[in-house]
């Protein structure tokens, strides 16, 4: 009796497991398909992409396509700008965000409720509302169009990151900070030498998400840095899409160059990635 029911139980588990995989595997393949095709297209000559044959395996034309791309726009230069901007942005934004999160987690101060309300309020406020005045201010009033400052500074404000860091700091045992305080350590040193080192995993998650956001940012760089030579890589690539005489193999090679580094980072640091997104670190 018992052995019989044990067999049927494990059979039931096996059955459910098979159904699960039968459902999930095709879905996963569909989901991987666009990425796979991106890679395949990037390795095919243009006359191969626009041929009636079904091609599902990579060819060997990647470097030629990069050459085609580079002839259409200075993509390598744009990648350089994107990397520099993303690195600078990430560093500044992590500092700014964690300082603000620390202030909200550790201190009581006049206007705290107001600051928290503002941050929560802006989570659901569409970016569109600030876009036009931001553009007018940066381009017309500050005359900063087509500069790095224009790319880096306006997007520094983010609300979910601050909430994430506030949460991270308030989950640390506050006795640690009290102990340092009793020892006469100044608050900014407590922040730098006690709080930040303890927040390292959270900072990693935050930094990855912020870097990704900057790397992929499209609308704002499209508007503010539209001059050739000042464009970020996504903007430079975007200018080619929709042109009539353009190398699609080149565009796909560009797409791969934008995507592959992030995929590698994602695979290596999946834990931090997932933590950052799960905490709603950024939209």
């Amino acid at each position, binding site marked *: 009796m018992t052995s019989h029911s044990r067999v049927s139980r494990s059979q039931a588990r096996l059955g459910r497991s098979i159904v699960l995989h039968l459902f999930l595997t095709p879905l996963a393949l569909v989901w991987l398909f666009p990425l796979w095709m991106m890679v395949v297209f990037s390795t095919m000559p243009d006359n191969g992409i626009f041929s009636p044959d079904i091609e599902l395996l990579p060819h060997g034309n990647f470097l030629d396509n990069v050459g085609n791309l580079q002839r259409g726009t200075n993509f390598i230069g744009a990648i350089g700008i994107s990397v520099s901007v993303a690195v600078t942005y990430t560093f500044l934004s992590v500092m700014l965000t964690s300082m603000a999160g620390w202030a909200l987690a550790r201190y009581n101060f006049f206007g705290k409720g107001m600051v928290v309300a503002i941050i929560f309020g802006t989570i659901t406020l569409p970016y569109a509302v600030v876009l036009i005045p931001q553009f007018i201010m940066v381009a017309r009033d500050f005359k900063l169009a087509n500069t790095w400052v224009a790319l880096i500074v306006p997007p520094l404000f983010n609300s979910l990151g601050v909430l994430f860091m506030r949460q991270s700091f308030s989950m640390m045992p506050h006795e640690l900070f009290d102990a340092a305080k009793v020892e006469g350590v100044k608050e900014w040193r407590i922040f730098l030498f006690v709080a930040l080192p303890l927040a390292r995993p959270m900072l990693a998650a935050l930094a990855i998400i912020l870097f990704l956001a900057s790397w992929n940012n499209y609308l704002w760089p499209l508007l503010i840095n539209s001059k050739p030579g000042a464009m970020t890589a996504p903007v430079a690539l975007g200018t080619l899409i929709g042109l009539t005489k353009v190398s699609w193999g080149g565009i796909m090679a*560009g797409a791969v160059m934008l995507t592959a580094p992030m995929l590698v980072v994602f695979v290596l640091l999946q834990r931090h990635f997932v933590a950052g997104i799960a905490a709603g670190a950024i939209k």
Partner: protein
Amino acid sequence: MRYQNATAYRFLAPYLLIFSIFWLWPIIDSFLISFQATRTVPWRFAPTFNWGRLIGDPAFFNALKNTLLILVIQVPVMISLAIVMAVLLNSPLLKARGLFRFAFFAPVVVGEVAYSAVFRLMFNLDYGIINKLLNSIGLPSVDWFTNVTPAMAVIMMAVTWRWAGYNAIILLAGLQSIPEDVYEAATLDRVSKVKQFFYITLPLLKPIIVFCAVLSIIGTMQLFTEPFLITERGGPGGGTETLGLLLYRQGFRSLNFGYASAIAYTMAGLAIAISLVQIWLTREPK
């Protein structure tokens, strides 16, 4: 409690400075600009100029209709799919979990431009891989980008592909925070797995589902890149033009900032309404 105003504001200063310059002032400014006629310099105060135009502008209602249509179809489909992904990824029976996670989560890191390009190429009429595959199983080609309905479908598929995994990550974290013993207790009470999903998982997950839905709605409401790049500036003939795209055209192509601001504030109004619905949906039962 002890108030430490000086210390706190020293830490907050850079953040609040950026906020004031690049958010607080623009929020106000945007509102002011929406009441100005901005097509001739100098701008002048004309309260009904833009808002009056908005009410009677077929292009605006077309964009509003398209945006709402995408919202109503794409967001529920994506959230349901994300819930399914999260629940199945959380199953203890799953093998090769890492591979499945990669498949569903990878789109999260793909930039809008890169994936727009791929989708555009995949859905090409004559040489797109999708039509080739349809033909190979005996189905006719679909002219994806010259008819409104398939063009909308491509936009929705693209957005769903890009963001379903993102929502699944958030939902999966929510699932993992539900204590195992709740399910063990239910199993001992002979509650079936399916019923456990509907009577335990979904109710406990509800605040997170609503959070995902609101973020998705607000994201989709501002949809810009996909109709800009995939369907070629909202084509065919404005059939996939969204509010985001209309705002871009009015503001940055026609440089009609006043009208664009009015459109922006309409979007803000919608967002506030949706947030209020969220608060109402997730309120604590008395």
